[in-house]
């Protein structure tokens, strides 16, 4: 798909392939092969990508199995219509079982990190301390995690964003200031960023420093093998060991398994398929689960959205998508009290805006015609810290694909209502002439009082109040107690000695912040543990 628009940008992935990287596209015809290695990794995102690099740097032989395609800067043309089907799970339309929550997850080499908005937060200290106190994770205190955050921040160029926020984010800063509420600036994992604003559809400049541009190339240049368009069907388990990974190539569409098969034999296996994929793989493999924990306590940071019109242009599609946030509504509430929420601004691109705005016909078209003046905030609920926020459950459909059932509780709807109120207040404080909480028929309000009154009366309900998620966490939690955790604090499966989980599935609660850096840090730590466990380098027998 390269064209003249992007031909001038060097593409390290295509250069690497030309230099002889071992990359196999399993959607292409071929015989059933067997690969042997030290570590087989399922998934190439925030967890799998960092694990692959860490293990390859330790001199171990690595095979990475990724369901999605390998795409790179030459392919990234900043078009939503191309990117969503190509780079996202289920064309960016993955839903919960009741279809009430739309889940954005990556499905390409680099996983979600290839298409995320580069927002980089350390795991909040309150979250880590909660894990120490309530989930037995004594080794995850803030001071113990700090070196891992520092290591990943250095590796992925995570640093303060020094350019001025775009207007969509600047309005959030103004709104919070006007209301005397704290806001902060977001750090980003970029280098040479041209402030284009198209992070969510793949960076055409390779400015995003992430598994796709950093970790996977490092692993491949050290001899790792990357198998793409390859679905990990099941781990072959013999009592307390995984003996092999059965892999099936996808068909050309990428949506359906094809006919080509692959077997991977390894000394250690790493599940890093994301917090829906990893529990799905464990369930398909009938992995021992004596306490019925796999797929339970899956969290989403459920997100609700508020749109507004500003008198001036906002041009929310241009510029770093996220640079300002407010934790006011998290920090002013106890962790185990009413659900708190983080407020951020999203990028505003035509498809994303159009499918987010409720209703149809004239009211929808009217708001879209004001597209350049559209301002959008989102509130991300911190789920998983309260008995009335037990999260969802991943189960398998008849065809073996995983699906998340995430019932919304009154506890969460209470947070949604407060979030709508807060976002409307901030938007009016920032100068909005109209605010439209994304709910029901999409009525817009001209004053804060009108909006507040309406929001108090909203009949909040699934498929009436659109909820989205871009952060799936939990489902294979870590912890020392086999009755409460699937893996131990080192990421090792409690019942299967050579199986590790290295992705957001590990988290015993949600993070309370965009999770990429949390996953990077835990992945680096667990992968170094795997490398140490495998001892001084000795290549797998071939």
């Amino acid at each position, binding site marked *: 798909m390269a064209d003249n628009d992007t031909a001038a*940008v060097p593409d390290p992935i295509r250069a690497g392939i030309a230099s002889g990287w071992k990359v196999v596209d399993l959607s292409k015809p071929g015989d059933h092969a067997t690969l042997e290695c030290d570590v087989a990794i399922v998934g190439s995102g925030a967890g799998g990508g960092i694990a692959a690099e860490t293990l390859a740097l330790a001199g171990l032989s690595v095979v990475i199995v990724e369901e999605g395609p390998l795409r790179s800067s030459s392919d990234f043309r900043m078009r939503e219509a191309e990117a969503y089907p190509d780079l996202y799970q289920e064309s960016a*339309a993955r839903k919960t079982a009741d*279809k009430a929550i739309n889940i954005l997850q990556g499905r390409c080499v680099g996983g979600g990190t290839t298409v995320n908005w580069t927002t980089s937060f350390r795991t909040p200290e309150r979250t880590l301390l909660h894990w120490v106190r309530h989930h037995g994770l004594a080794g995850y205190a803030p001071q113990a995690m700090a070196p891992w955050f520092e290591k990943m921040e250095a590796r992925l160029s995570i640093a303060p964003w020094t350019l001025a926020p775009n207007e969509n984010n600047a309005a959030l800063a103004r709104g919070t200031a006007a209301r005397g509420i704290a806001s902060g600036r977001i750090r980003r994992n970029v280098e040479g960023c041209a402030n284009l604003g198209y992070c969510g559809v793949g960076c055409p400049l390779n400015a995003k420093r992430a598994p796709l541009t950093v970790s996977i190339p490092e692993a491949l240049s050290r001899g790792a093998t990357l198998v793409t368009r390859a679905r990990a069907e099941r781990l072959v388990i013999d009592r307390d060991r995984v003996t092999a990974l059965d892999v099936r190539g996808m068909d050309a569409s990428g949506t359906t398994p094809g006919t080509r098969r692959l077997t991977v034999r390894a000394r250690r296996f790493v599940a890093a398929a994301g917090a829906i994929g990893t529990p799905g793989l464990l369930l398909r493999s009938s992995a021992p689960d004596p306490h019925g924990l796999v797929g339970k306590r899956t969290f989403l940071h459920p997100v609700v959205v508020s749109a507004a019109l500003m008198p001036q242009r906002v041009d929310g599609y241009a510029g770093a998508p996220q640079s300002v946030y407010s934790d006011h509504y998290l920090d002013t509430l106890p962790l185990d009290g009413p659900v708190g929420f983080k407020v951020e601004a999203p990028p505003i691109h035509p498809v994303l*805006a159009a499918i987010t705005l409720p209703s149809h*016909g004239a009211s*929808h078209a009217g708001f*879209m015609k004001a597209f350049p003046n559209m301002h959008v905030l989102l509130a991300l609920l911190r789920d998983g810290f309260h008995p009335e926020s037990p999260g969802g459950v991943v189960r398998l459909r008849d065809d073996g694909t995983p699906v998340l059932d995430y019932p919304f509780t009154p506890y969460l709807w209470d947070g949604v209502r407060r979030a709508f109120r807060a976002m409307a207040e901030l938007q009016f404080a920032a100068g909005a002439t109209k605010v439209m909480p994304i709910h029901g*028929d999409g009525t817009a309000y001209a004053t804060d009082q009108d909006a507040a009154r309406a929001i108090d009366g909203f009949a909040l309900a699934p498929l009436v109040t659109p909820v989205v998620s871009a952060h799936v966490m939990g489902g294979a939690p870590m912890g020392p107690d086999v009755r409460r955790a699937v893996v131990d604090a080192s990421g090792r499966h409690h019942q299967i000695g050579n199986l590790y989980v290295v992705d957001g599935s590990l988290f015993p609660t949600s993070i309370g912040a965009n999770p990429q850096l949390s996953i990077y840090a835990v992945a680096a730590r667990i992968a170094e543990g795997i490398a140490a466990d495998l001892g001084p380098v000795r290549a797998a027998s071939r």
Partner: protein
Amino acid sequence: MRRRTFLALGTASAAALAAAGWWSWLRTREASEKRTLGDDGAMIVAAIVPAMLAGALPVAGQERRTAIGEVVIGVDRAIAGLPAHARAEIGQLFALLALAPARRAFAGVASPWPEAGVAEVSAFLDRWRDSGWALKRSAYDALHQLILAAWYGNPRSWAAIGYAGPPKL
């Protein structure tokens, strides 16, 4: 055979003749491509598009027919990119809506799809959006997402919303 039936219906009114216009255009465009909507599904989507996108589509003429045809193609492509379970559910929705008794009873649309005007289809969309039955709301949601994404992912829609498109590198 379904196509012949549809084209026969299409002679029934001026509105349907316009629909037949984009339809033949769609047939030539998509002859070599795998289609997932099927003839009935394409007919239903083409009938819903003018209501879902009322106020957004070009108002008349070849421009409008082309836009509707491209939205149908976009919806078809989007469905092709969904996993089997989602394709099956959407297929069931269109199969149901294609049956006249179900169209009348379930969707409340009295006219055959090719003859249903914007007002009639808009009323149907309002009812499903506001339905007390989550199944209808989820079906509305699917139509909303598919059709709006197909139109606003199409560069043809961008000028009217003041979006200049991605920057040139």
